């Protein structure tokens, strides 16, 4: 048994982009372009980035819902990258996905009992109907729902309850790895706090390893052990949460942190406003992909593509400039 539950090396996922001209070749959309990280057992690693950064694609490729274009995905020491559906089946119960949209992720025509119990039906077909029902009721209790909810249909639940159902389905086979893809972004603030608290409690109780994908830095800072920041398909910074929030080393991280709205009218605001939008992943800038929006860019940034380097123990960044003194924003006083 290795120390790391999940080791991802140089993961690449390319999609065919639009065709260039009628008879031209498809452009290549490099959604994920060389991402490496390890996930220790029991750890929560957050993957942060804006839309189009490729963070969700990493999550889905790691779970092998998409076939990687290149690189290696080792789960508990075993390589997943080359396996087909049949080869993957034994791993499915050990790694699960929680979705962002609590509405489209539950089949509207199925009862909760069948939705939440489906993984058991597939992985433990010998289980009797009653035994399965009992396990469903147990897991519903674990996520804060009632046993009687097993009879209902998804539309009879609120958004927060639906997200609990999604978590229940993910946990019923006792997976070791859970990929949570923006699990709270679609929820109201007060409900979001319920689900975050639930996930933290379940992690402690069940010893889950979580890859938490989010664009919400406040939630990420709150619940993760380490944070990886993605920009245009690549990691630009990877660090323990505290280090990332208190002494960011990459200009993009600095800008992200400064753009985070702080719920305190008196919080000092020193905002680094990034110019423009994220460039198209079909045509990323040469050298450092962030240079087109970076306030610290130099001519060298257009030439050399920076690799992730370890700047302090466990703190990696992909930026050529080591002479920057970047600032961490205030998080505002707790109420």
């Amino acid at each position, binding site marked *: 048994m290795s120390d790391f539950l999940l080791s991802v090396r140089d993961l690449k996922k390319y999609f065919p982009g639009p065709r260039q001209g009628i008879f031209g070749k498809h452009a290549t959309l490099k959604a994920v372009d060389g991402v490496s990280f390890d996930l220790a057992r029991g750890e929560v690693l957050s993957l942060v980035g804006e*839309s189009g950064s490729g963070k969700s694609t990493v999550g889905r490729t790691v779970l092998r819902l998409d076939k990687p274009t290149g690189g290696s995905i080792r789960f508990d020491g075993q390589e997943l990258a080359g396996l087909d559906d049949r080869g993957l089946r034994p791993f499915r119960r050990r790694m699960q996905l929680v979705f962002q949209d609590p509405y489209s992720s539950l089949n509207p025509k199925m009862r909760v009992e069948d939705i939440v119990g489906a993984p058991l039906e597939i992985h433990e077909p010998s289980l009797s109907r009653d035994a399965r029902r009992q396990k469903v009721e147990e897991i519903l209790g674990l996520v804060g729902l009632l046993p009687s909810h097993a009879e209902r249909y998804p539309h009879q639940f609120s958004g927060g309850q639906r997200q609990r159902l999604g978590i229940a389905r993910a946990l019923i086979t006792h997976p070791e790895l859970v990929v949570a893809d923006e699990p709270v972004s679609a929820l109201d603030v007060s*409900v979001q706090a319920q689900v*975050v608290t639930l996930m933290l409690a379940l992690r402690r109780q069940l010893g889950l390893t979580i890859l938490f994908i989010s*664009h919400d830095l406040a939630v990420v800072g*709150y619940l993760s052990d380490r944070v990886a920041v993605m920009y245009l398909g690549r990691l630009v910074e990877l660090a323990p949460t505290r280090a990332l929030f208190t002494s960011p080393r990459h200009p993009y991280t600095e800008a992200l942190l400064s753009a985070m709205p702080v719920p305190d009218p008196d919080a000092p605001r020193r*905002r680094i406003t990034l110019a423009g939008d*994220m460039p198209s992943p079909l045509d990323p800038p040469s050298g450092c992909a962030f240079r087109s929006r970076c306030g610290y860019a130099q001519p060298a940034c257009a030439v050399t593509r920076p690799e992730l380097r370890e700047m302090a123990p466990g703190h990696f960044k992909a930026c050529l400039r080591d002479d920057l003194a970047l600032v961490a924003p205030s*998080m505002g006083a707790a*109420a």
Partner: protein
Amino acid sequence: MEADTVLEVRNFSVSFGILPAVRDVSFSLKPGETLALVGESGSGKSVTSLGILKLTPPAPFCRIEGQALLRTRKGDVVDLVTASADAMRGLRGREAAMIFQEPMTSLNPVHPVGAQVGEALRFHQGLSKRAALAQAAELLDLVGIPDARRRLGAFPHELSGGMRQRVMIALALACEPVLLIADEPTTALDVTIQAQILELLQRLQQRTKMGVLFITHNLGVVAEIADRVMVMYAGRVVEQAPVRRLFHAPLMPYTRGLLRSVPRPDFSGAEQPPLEAIPGSVPDPLAPPPGCSFSPRCGHFAPGLCDSVSPPLSVAEPDHLVRCARWADVAGAA
């Protein structure tokens, strides 16, 4: 209506059939002021904003009651609730404009953005086609669209989400309205783009002195842009206060719960402080709980008091209103 007020809403209610979506909302807005309307889904915040501009479905399906007095640029006072459909068409855009969460649905996909902004200018200001296009380019430049003159010919789908929202803002500001209603304008955007748009809105507001009614569920955004805040829950205003007061001395237990449920990473200690979530969920609008609609989720619930009568809005301070039967006790307990 006081002289320095752009919009005064009195006892405003909106209902869809037997379903009351907004009940008895009153507030006023001064020129250059930003009033944030905060609430979760189903609180009635968006219906309030749509109802003020009468963008809700027509009469038999949706009933609007109360008053919404708008002071036009010329100084006339118009009640939007009783205004005719024709009058509303003239007022929307010229005096009161609105921007939405998803700009793609509010922009016409088959016309270039320049033509759409120009069209608004021609309709409301009677400009010639040429003059309108020239002014459209100026406006797009003003909202921070790089190379605005060239972008006039761009179609909405060719622009990014942030750029589309800028076009929407340009469209809304085409006739320098006195009132801008912004319904979750940054919710669909990434944080770095959200920061850009908020900054843009603040800059434009300083320039035009328009009153802004900003609808959002994001308390971080509220803290950044609002002068005053109104919190809605289950169709009613439950608290209204200047932004500092609301964040530092909230009185309504719901507001307190909302503020506490926002995660604020704190790296001073070894562990993060626990998040305090509000238990339960928003009540079913067709079967509201008796008494105070927040009572089933409230930590200060007093049997016999909170579940019998719906509390009125109490004046805690001249500019601080709260709808809670126990606000004095709650304030003392904290």
